[in-house]
């Protein structure tokens, strides 16, 4: 149930035609491979399976056959200064099954064109090579401290 309540109508009040609950759903990329007709969302903790189904069907006109939800506990971590344990808020994930034959692929939002990709790959490769050769140089000279670089057999 939404935490926002539909205002109870008192005689003489203006009638509200639109009611907006504070529900939200966010499409997320699944970590584990899902069948093509299963879509993963993270959603407001207050939403039930029925809410999720209605949200998708009534607002976005997406037919969903089945909804399964789980609540995910995020990893805890240590606070850097004082060293106490911090936990982020829990997340509710919904796995929505679309009718058979429908397919959903998570969009590649930051798609780079091929030339840019190649350029980046080349740069990375060059950086890696120079790093490797420097490591090699260090390895070779690690037992010859205070010797000039050109002094070699």
């Amino acid at each position, binding site marked *: 149930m939404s935490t926002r309540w539909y205002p109870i109508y008192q005689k003489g009040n203006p009638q509200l035609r639109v009611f907006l609950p504070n529900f939200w759903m966010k499409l997320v990329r699944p970590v*584990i491979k*899902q069948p093509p007709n299963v879509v993963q969302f993270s959603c407001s903790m207050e939403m039930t399976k029925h809410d999720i189904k209605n949200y998708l069907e009534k607002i976005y006109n997406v037919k969903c*056959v*089945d909804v399964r939800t789980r609540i995910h506990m995020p990893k805890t971590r*240590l606070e850097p200064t004082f*060293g106490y344990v911090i936990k982020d808020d829990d997340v509710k994930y919904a*796995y929505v099954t679309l009718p058979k034959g429908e397919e959903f692929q998570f969009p590649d939002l930051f798609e780079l064109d091929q030339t840019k990709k190649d350029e980046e790959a080349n740069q990375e490769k060059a950086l890696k090579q120079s790093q490797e050769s420097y490591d090699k140089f260090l390895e070779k000279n690690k037992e010859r401290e205070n010797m000039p670089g050109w002094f070699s057999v």
Partner: protein
Amino acid sequence: MSVIRLNNRFYQKLRSCRYSSTVTRLEEEYTSTPNYPPILDLSPEKKRERMKDESYDQIKAVKTVEEKQIKLNMPKYYGFKSYMLLENKCGYNMLPMTQHATRTHLVVNKGLPDYYKEFNVDELANKLKSEVEEALSIEIDGYQRLHDLTNEALEKEDLEDIVSSSLIKRINRIIMNELSLDLQDTQVDIEPRIEASWNVGGIVPPSSVVNSRKGVPWLKDRIDEPTDRVMVYKGVPILTLRSKLPLKSVIPLSESENPDLDVPVFDCDPRTIGTTTEYRHMTNIPGFWPGDPHTFGLLSYHKRGYMHLRKDRYNDLNDDQEAIHRQGILTAFGWLMAQAHYLGFNTFNDLTYPLVTQTVVTNGKTWSFYTYQMNTTMLCERFFKSNPRRNICWATDQMDLFEDIADGKLIGFNDEVLKNLLKFYLNRPESPLGINLTPYLSNEEKLCSDYEDDHKRKWLEDMFKFLMSNRPRHKLVYEIYAWEKIYKIDNKTRFMDKRLRPFELFQHPYQRRLDETCPRYIPKKFREDVKRVKGGSYRFEKTYYP
């Protein structure tokens, strides 16, 4: 202190060294043709494959049915993580996953396959029609049942199952009475417990496996390589018929290698479509214990009350039909798999001849017929790609036996359904000529009851029954408490605490093997010969792990 006292193994080593100095004669060392050892591929994956093959051969070499079951369970003390494929629970769009897990090619026809053409049942159907009609009208609408009188609030799926099971028992009795001469050698089981377990490959690895592979240099290229999953089928048919001999195969075994028999690939984790997991021992129970001569299934009837739940949840007629096909495939495969285990085959050692069974899924009014031929049990990852055989299921669409009941009379009786059912009964098993039905069982001892040693027999029987019961261990696997997970495992905030818990002592309970346990202590009074020496294994019961 002497070395022998300090290290027990030293003495054993010393003993084995005694003969090392024996000189072998020169002639024995040489043969006329050189004998070279085989050249083996030493790559890590080939080594691993050889290791697996060796363990599968060990299972094959085990003598008896019960010991084979214990052998399969040897790797896990607390059981395997198993995916539960239940007969009466079916999510949305589960057919492709089931076909993948059982490697089944599905053929859907209007009627039964040509295999049944030879049976002429018109006369028999006419003879039995009135009796079947009477049974239907009485069972469905004829009398008050116990729950009617006690006003018990039963769900509609339970009500349907009650009616269908009593109806099927009655119809089976009518047909058995008529065909009593033909069906003399047939056993009838009422609501038997059927369970089967097998390994399935070709499924993407779970994230824990992916993470562990990332850390190993030689596995880096093979991070996404599929892994094995243990599948478990559990079901309770209304009634099963079985015989001493197998049914004749629908198609020869060699034809099952035809690549045109396509099987859908479902490589996602079955949990993504709603399958659950449990830790269980691998159990294989076809509704009877080993030693029963009637080892081959002929026919099984299954309930379909759970379809009501699906209707409330999914409301998709097309998917309902698929769910029934899924049940037909799964129940037939599960039953045959359990039978195959009693014949000495398992998920690592393939069938040498096909097994056939017939399945009926019904609620009394709507009937579906399935003929299933199992050609392979070897679905584990090691052979998943190399094994060309597929199992085949011939299915019919759902058919209504009658349209309605009015005033105790049936309207629109469909003879075709009754004829199909009678054809299943007339399909009699045949003696397979020249086939050894149990090639992987020993000739002398096929069951543990064939052993001479009383103690061994009893021990094996107890262990087998314990594993098959799947009761939890007396000492359950330890629980990691939430505070431990937060303050000890995820964040090391309590490093001064004494390390006492298994996760701090590098112990992994789920990797404990079945035999990693202390054998039973025998009190002095019951020991046969009490030795004077302190210590030694005689204080504990002898074990017979295969």
